[in-house]
């Protein structure tokens, strides 16, 4: 048996290393990793200290900035700016109607078109969104869940029309429907029918899109909705186990799709707890994939994650101070070994970010990456008595929650997650934790600078924020009307007809029908309504 250091050394030697001087400012040369011979190592099971042996010495994290507003043409401009100023991945924010699978001309879309993201109705919008961007040369992340299969189909259709075959497309679909019922609440179909669509996207990408990550299992929204760090960790990984069980049920070998699962965590303001959370997440995932699900490929066991700083930690008061909060949170993500990072802009408790504030958010990452030298040594906090103890404690708390979910599911995490949603268990725990935090703030136990203390400066004029007018909504409705006028109506009806037929048979994969419907300019709303005709719609019972 080779010892962990030898395993690490072997993996490290096989890694390509960035051209950089790995030393301190005073010239002290730095090892890529520090620790005892028999301890844990990055790139070595259970990966507590990082998924890769060389971590940021090989590749810095991807500086992925989430963007999208107004029409596809506006967002395309922002995408090009991001690529020009050194960002290397695109992350698409869709507007509320698109997230809910509605068209811009739906009565429920009133006032929401292009507000929180870009409005996509048809393939024509997808074409505008990625105009003059080489989809084979960058990675694209799409934050979409209920209509994830529809938007993936449209993306594939657009790329292929632009001459980029689907095998070349790299990126990530959020496609994490379980946390929608638990936390973010952008659901359309009932849970089990939604899971069928997840299965279809997982199977489709496993077969045809080797560079695509089919699900980004997201704790971010669970945390933003009010959970604790331990609940974020446990609910997210439990959802991950549920998707693993789903794909196994569909007959996919675990090592064929587990490498395509990635995670998305929050970076909140409790610095060390966040770092412990990331470390515990890697260790738990590796152990469960290996022990419970029988994975043998390293890639299946290596948890990789995207991080976003905590939107809820931002304040509307003295918004410039948010730059500081975001920098600290981003640093936690980096010290925790994130593969990609989004930093929030200082004005996001007020509105969508301006170009200037989004640039400062990117600069924050660049300072951490290029000025601080924190990238030289993997898992720099590993071995700290404190961080190691906290890591163990996060792991233990998560295991207690897994036991409860497993029990709810009668030995299945997939069933446990669905039952927990049906019984309002996740939702109730998140709401309880949110209220507990609020009460701590109201009791004066939690200080928020500029809100509960240190208020001098609050009266100064507020900063200019981005204004989005209803003109975009009008423009988008007109755009949709003209696309509908120009398309071949009977081709659309045929495509939707086939989609409905395919939806009835749970054994059929819906992706081919969705790609074909996209190609003839069926709208997002038409495809979703067609499926809702078969699947039904989910209604949440309101509880306080």
């Amino acid at each position, binding site marked *: 048996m080779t010892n962990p250091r030898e395993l690490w050394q072997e993996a490290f030697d096989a890694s390509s290393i960035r051209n950089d001087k790995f030393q301190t400012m005073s010239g002290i040369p730095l090892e890529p990793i520090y620790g005892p011979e028999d301890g844990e190592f990055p790139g070595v099971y259970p990966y507590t200290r990082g998924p890769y042996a060389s971590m940021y010495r090989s590749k810095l994290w991807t500086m992925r900035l989430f963007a999208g507003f107004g029409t596809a043409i506006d967002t395309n401009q922002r995408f090009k700016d991001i690529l020009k100023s050194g960002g290397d991945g695109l992350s698409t924010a869709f507007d509320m*109607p698109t997230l809910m699978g509605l068209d811009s001309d739906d009565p429920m879309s*009133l006032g*929401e078109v292009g507000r*929180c993201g870009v409005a996509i109705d048809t393939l024509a919008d997808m074409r505008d969104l990625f105009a003059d961007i080489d989809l084979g040369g960058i990675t694209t992340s799409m934050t979409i869940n209920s209509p994830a299969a529809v938007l993936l189909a449209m993306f594939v259709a657009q790329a292929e029309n632009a001459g980029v075959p689907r095998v070349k497309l790299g990126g990530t679909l959020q496609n994490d429907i379980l946390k929608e019922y638990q936390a973010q609440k952008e659901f359309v179909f009932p849970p089990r029918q939604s899971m069928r669509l997840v299965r279809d996207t997982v199977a489709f990408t496993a077969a045809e899109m080797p560079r695509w990550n089919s699900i980004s299992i997201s704790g971010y929204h669970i945390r933003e909705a009010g959970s604790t760090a331990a609940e974020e960790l446990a609910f997210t990984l439990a959802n991950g186990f549920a998707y693993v069980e789903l794909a196994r049920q569909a007959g996919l070998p675990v090592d064929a799709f587990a490498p395509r699962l990635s995670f998305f965590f929050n970076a909140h303001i409790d610095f060390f707890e966040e770092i412990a959370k990331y470390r515990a997440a890697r260790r738990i995932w590796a152990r469960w994939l290996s022990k419970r699900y029988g994975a043998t490929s390293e890639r299946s066991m290596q948890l990789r994650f995207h991080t976003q700083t905590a939107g809820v930690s931002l304040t509307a008061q003295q918004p410039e101070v948010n730059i500081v909060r975001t920098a600290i949170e981003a640093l936690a993500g980096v010290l925790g070994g994130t593969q990609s990072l989004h930093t929030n802009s200082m004005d996001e408790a*007020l509105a969508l970010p301006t170009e200037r504030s989004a640039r400062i958010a990117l600069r924050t990452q660049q300072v951490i990456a290029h000025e601080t030298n924190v990238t030289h040594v993997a898992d720099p906090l590993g071995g700290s008595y404190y961080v190691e103890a906290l890591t163990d404690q996060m792991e233990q708390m998560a295991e207690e929650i897994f036991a409860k979910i497993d029990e709810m599911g009668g030995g299945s995490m997939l069933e446990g997650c669905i039952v927990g949603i049906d019984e309002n268990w996740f939702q109730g725990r998140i*709401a309880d934790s949110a209220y507990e935090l609020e009460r701590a703030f109201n009791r004066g136990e939690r200080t928020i600078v500029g809100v509960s203390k240190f208020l001098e400066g609050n009266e100064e004029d507020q900063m200019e924020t981005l204004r989005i007018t209803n003109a975009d909504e009008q423009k988008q409705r007109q755009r949709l009307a003209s696309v509908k006028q120009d398309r071949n109506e009977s081709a659309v009806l045929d495509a939707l007809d086939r989609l409905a037929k395919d939806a009835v048979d749970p054994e059929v994969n819906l992706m081919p029908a969705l790609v074909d419907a996209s190609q003839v300019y069926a709208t997002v709303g038409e495809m979703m309504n067609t499926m809702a005709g078969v699947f039904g719609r989910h209604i949440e019972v*309101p509880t*306080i």
Partner: protein
Amino acid sequence: MTTSDNQSLRVLVAKVGLDGHDRGVKVVARLLRDAGIEVIYTGLFQTPETVAAAAVDEDVDVVGLSMLSGAHMTLAPLVVQAIRARGADIPVVIGGIVPNHDLEELKAAGIAEILGPGAPASEVVEAVRRAAAGTSKV
């Protein structure tokens, strides 16, 4: 302000439109309830019409809207209009993410109170009481 002063108050808290962010509305519902106010929650994805109908049917003193998606300028005035169209005069309070440059127009559209991020429990309860008493600043 004591809990008993609030006991006669009934508040409808609502999510209108497509915005599913329900952390704020639930926290506010619980803290109003803990302050002795009777709270009814509509649930997600309501329209201005369904909110107005519920407000009138439930005979509430105040309607609280939680809005974080940027649709407040369109939807909040429609809620006020829908309530008035039913011959009622129930004050509407908004909480959530509302940029400063929108405040004046929302007041002009008949919104009684607007609560920004970070408002403590005491301020939320005060705003609801002012709205109910008709003593909100115009």
